[in-house]
């Protein structure tokens, strides 16, 4: 069995990239989903706030997914549910497992890696204390509450003020779980301002900035959580402990791209993004294998995932359509200068760029009134002013073909102070 494109993952990235490839003329497209339905984590994100960029209207997560599901229904795209990809071999054979096909090997002329991400756990941050029931990640709690109709606890504290933590604070409140507070290690919240207003302020839930959980108490079910203020090095300050009688602690302490599948593959990996290295076409170091969405790098908004995935789908169509020998190989490496933690893409093949290429990146701390400077070979190519940048918010700049042609094999992107 040979497919023109095999998309691994049926979440927002997989759906949008598969759809875009199909629309661009790729015929035999297969989307492989390990869960019982496509849509990914959107299905459990029942709150609204999605889709303003993509559909120009405010949608809930399931509605956003439904739009893509409806569009895909109109195509010949094949979907395999309840199917796990076990490995991808050197011949772009995808080894799948499900109850109907058993263990089966299928061939893809191209592959899109769109496996999404997973939540960081208690272990990743080594929270001291005992290991009772009632300590769970926000996403797991969300699944229990929103999909399975279960109640996770009576009184809860939430560690991490990213959007998932904030959304769950509201959701638990509405479902009758008293939320005693949201605890955030940083001196600012990582969530969108509107979620602070709608999810915390509306429900009088206090936000403890510059605090962290320093002890978990309870032999069987969680009984108490101790939090402490942290100093400028994020170390807990003795004597600042506060005690909360809660039976539930939700952890919303970050997301990590899920790329276990590529562990045994010879493919370039970026330890900063925890995803693969891609070029302007979202193509990895292995020809014909592409990546997009949260498997590539964690995005703030699903709308941005869809945009990126659409681009990956288009690139697949181009890849399958053109005679590869005609394309030149002038490659520019994007270097993270001062203030940047990563860029996606990490490299650009100039000859493949039609007019422009968007570069996404994150910064390492809060910046006010600074410039983003693009340099190559010691020469300033372009600069952009920014009033405000946060590590939690993904930044994007556009590089034009003209600009790229002025560059040598490396471009540095950095943050500098405004000149007075």
């Amino acid at each position: 069995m040979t497919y023109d494109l095999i998309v691994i993952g049926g979440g927002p990235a997989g759906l949008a990239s598969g759809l875009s490839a199909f629309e661009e003329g790729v015929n035999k497209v297969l989307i492989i989903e390990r869960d019982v339905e496509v849509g990914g984590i959107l299905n459990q994100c029942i709150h609204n706030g999605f889709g303003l960029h993509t559909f120009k209207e405010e949608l809930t997560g399931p509605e956003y997914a439904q739009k893509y599901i409806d569009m895909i229904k109109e195509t010949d795209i094949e979907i395999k549910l309840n199917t796990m990809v076990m490995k991808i071999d050197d011949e772009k054979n995808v080894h799948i497992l499900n109850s109907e096909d058993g263990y089966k090997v299928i061939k893809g002329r191209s592959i899109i890696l769109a496996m999404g991400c997973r939540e960081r756990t208690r272990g990743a941050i080594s929270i001291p204390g005992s290991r009772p029931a009632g300590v769970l990640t926000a996403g797991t709690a969300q699944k229990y509450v929103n999909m399975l109709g279960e109640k996770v606890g009576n009184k809860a504290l939430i560690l991490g003020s990213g959007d998932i933590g904030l959304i769950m604070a509201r959701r638990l409140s509405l479902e009758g779980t008293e939320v005693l507070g949201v605890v955030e290690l940083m001196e600012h919240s990582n969530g969108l301002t509107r979620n602070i207003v709608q999810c915390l302020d509306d429900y009088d839930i206090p936000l403890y900035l510059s605090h962290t959980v320093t002890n978990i108490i309870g032999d069987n079910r969680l009984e108490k959580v101790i939090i402490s203020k942290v100093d400028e090095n994020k170390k807990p300050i003795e004597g600042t402990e506060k005690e909360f009688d809660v039976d539930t602690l939700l952890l919303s302490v970050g997301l990590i791209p899920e790329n276990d599948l590529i562990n045994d593959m010879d493919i370039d990996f970026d330890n900063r993004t925890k995803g693969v290295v891609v070029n302007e076409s979202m193509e990895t170091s292995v020809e014909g294998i592409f990546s997009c969405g949260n498997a590539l790098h964690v995005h703030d908004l699903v709308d941005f995932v869809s945009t990126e995935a659409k681009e990956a789908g288009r690139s697949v169509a181009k890849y399958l359509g053109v005679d590869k020998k005609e394309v030149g190989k002038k490659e520019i490496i994007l270097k993270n200068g001062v203030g940047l933690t990563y860029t996606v893409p990490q490299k650009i093949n100039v000859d493949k760029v039609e007019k422009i290429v968007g570069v996404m990146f994150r910064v390492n701390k809060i910046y006010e009134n600074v410039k983003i400077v693009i340099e190559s070979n010691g020469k300033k190519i372009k600069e952009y002013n920014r009033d405000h940048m946060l590590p939690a918010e993904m930044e994007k700049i556009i590089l034009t073909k003209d600009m790229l042609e002025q560059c040598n094999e490396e471009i540095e992107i950095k943050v500098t102070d405004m000149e007075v």
Partner: protein
Amino acid sequence: MEKVICTVCPKGCHMKVEIEEKKVEGNSCKRGEIYGLAEVVTPIRVITSTIDIKGGQFKKIPVKTLEAVEKGLNFKIIEEMKKIKVKSPIKCGTVVIENILGTGVDVVVTRDM
């Protein structure tokens, strides 16, 4: 004058609202202005939750109020939502409660199931 953080879109503009003169500053769009004025007089929110479904893939199906409703009604609306049960199959957008609590706003399911 009241300070309001706009929740219309993820941007989260910090606005100043002068209610008597119906003046809003700091917004980036018209929607923000409308939100700012409403937020000071009667804050409104879209309420989302889940309701029971029979014969579906899951025990619960998500719902939302089709428009924003007075934010103080949130818990009452959730109570109303808990009272109803729908049957699979049902299409995304199907109205399951009309004119909830006399707000003039309908409640719809937000996916097929």
